[in-house]
């Protein structure tokens, strides 16, 4: 790892060099008040004043709907066309928050814990992450409670910490990061010795993860699930905006003799998620589904995959139409 300084003009020149290299560049764009990652060509398109994008960057390494393979029926036989990793374009994600970049680790843990997931890995290999450390947070942010921080570099290839002069401290964290620097090395100057921590938002931890984990180990039959989920609509918004939720459905898209099998985002909050053909449903009630969501992220994943299924980005709380606030709920479980 190497730390450099990049000036205000240097940032724009470097950004342009990345675009000119032919890679796809995604960055937060403000479209009618909603900030989300979109393809950009100019630095001026990138949104400035916001706390969090509505959607996480998850879709860049785990698309909402992705063709697993396609097929064609010919004279009673079936020809398969496999997913081609080469079809995935080189992509640079610009101005990613540390809590989003940190989501790559739990996502990969799910996709690769047993058999390797060729599709997810193809996206990962082609994706470079330039994160910006956080100088601001809101009441939904809690990265520091789930092993993160406003300057966490997990999942980042380069992290920029913006300085008052419009320049930035640039931490070059991986070979992919070095390759991005190599597109315009002249704008990267010697480190000026500025301490990154000085420019990070102060975000005290709201709960103790180990304490929560210990409580959850004994909470399966608790009444807390029903109490907390009584207002849940089961809309699944929390799962769709989450940087680590990976549960999926496999669907068929068939037209005559041709078709595609597609992996699509799904959500454990949906009533049909676990419904058997017989009509039996092991998670029939919303409280059982809410319990699954929390236990999966904060108990099952830490135990089985050695990673927490939450990065503290706060999106689920912001997106929830009925204010199911994960931070409040987890904090109250910790206090039980």
């Amino acid at each position, binding site marked *: 790892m190497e730390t450099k300084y990049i000036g205000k003009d240097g940032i724009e020149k470097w950004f342009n060099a990345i675009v000119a290299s032919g890679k796809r560049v995604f960055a937060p764009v403000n479209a009618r008040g909603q900030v989300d990652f979109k393809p950009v060509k100019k630095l001026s398109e990138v949104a400035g004043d916001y706390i969090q994008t509505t959607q996480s960057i998850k879709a860049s390494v785990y698309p909402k709907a992705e063709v697993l393979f396609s097929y064609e029926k010919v004279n009673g036989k079936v020809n398969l066309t496999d997913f081609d990793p080469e079809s995935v374009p080189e992509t640079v994600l610009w101005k990613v928050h540390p809590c989003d970049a940190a989501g790559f680790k739990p996502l990969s843990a799910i996709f690769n814990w047993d058999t390797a997931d060729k599709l997810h890995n193809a996206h990962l290999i082609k994706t470079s992450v330039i994160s910006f450390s956080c100088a601001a947070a809101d009441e939904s942010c809690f990265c520091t409670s789930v092993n993160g921080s406003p300057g966490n570099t997990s999942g980042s290839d380069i992290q920029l910490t913006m300085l008052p002069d419009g320049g930035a401290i640039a931490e070059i964290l991986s070979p992919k990061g070095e390759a991005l620097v190599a597109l315009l090395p002249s704008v990267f100057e010697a480190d000026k010795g500025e301490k990154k921590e000085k420019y990070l938002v102060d975000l005290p931890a709201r709960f103790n993860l180990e304490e929560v984990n210990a409580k959850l180990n004994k909470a399966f039959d608790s009444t807390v699930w029903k109490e907390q989920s009584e207002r849940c609509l089961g809309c699944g918004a929390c799962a769709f905006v989450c940087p680590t939720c990976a549960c999926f459905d496999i669907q068929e898209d068939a037209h005559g003799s041709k078709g595609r*099998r597609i992996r699509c985002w799904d959500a454990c909050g949906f009533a049909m998620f676990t419904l058997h053909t017989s009509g039996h449903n092991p998670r029939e009630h919303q409280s059982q589904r809410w319990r699954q969501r929390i236990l999966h992220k904060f108990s099952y994943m830490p135990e089985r995959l050695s990673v927490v299924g939450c990065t503290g980005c706060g999106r689920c709380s912001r997106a929830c139409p009925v204010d199911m606030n994960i931070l409040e709920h987890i904090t109250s479980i910790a206090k039980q």
Partner: protein
Amino acid sequence: MSEQNTYLPYLMTIEKVIKEAPGVKTYRLKFQDEAEAEAFEFKAGQFGEYSAFGEGESTFCIASSPTRKGYIECTFRDSGRVTSGLASLEEGSTMGFRGPYGNVFPMEEWKGKNLLFIAGGIALPPMRCVIWNALDLRENFKDITIVYGAKTVNDLVYKSELKEWSDRPDVKMVTTVDPGGENADWKGEIGFVPTIVEKVAPSAENTIAIVCGPPIMIKFTFPVLEKLGFKDDQIYTTLENRMKCGVGKCGRCNVGKLYICKDGPVFSKEELNLIPAEEY
């Protein structure tokens, strides 16, 4: 990149179709690619994702025994979009298969023991794999008892095999139908599976009980086995939950922290005691 696409199915030819019961069919499937056929191995208890191109995938056990080489069989009921798509296929048609997935029955550990198979309705297929596996290696096991029940005579599957097992001197075969499910020719037992088990079960001494059936049957059979003296590590079952991937990623088949697709589908009662029963 040498990684394989887990979701890309093997192409299989339906070699034989057997109508088992109303809406229930068995397909014998052969690999279209010889190298794939050669490399394919599985063990009793494992399952797969079977696909009808144009409809999607469905999860069933491999119902044939690993001792029968060159093909696999699946038995399914026409009950949803995918299974009705599968049911409309004919001999010679192509379908997809992914697998084998999941853990296995510990048959090696059962050598020298008596085996008691208890199955209900459409749950005989996962047990049929183990039964044939045991019968093909008959000298490895002592007494073999099979108790199989269905709602009505019509609902019994594998009718010709039931007769074959029943005719064998080295198998004690008991078939039963629920009261009212019998017909004029019925020569088997009449009564619910747990009741019949209590009547005909061998001693628990050196015996492994393998139970597979609808949740209600399992719920009432476990106490009977307990009463007969079976310990929790002498009782095995195979569970099923809705699945999509079969490889521990899609997130829907877990029971507590365990995935039926990875940690199961085979569980001893001892293992079942550690996971929440309401999630299966």
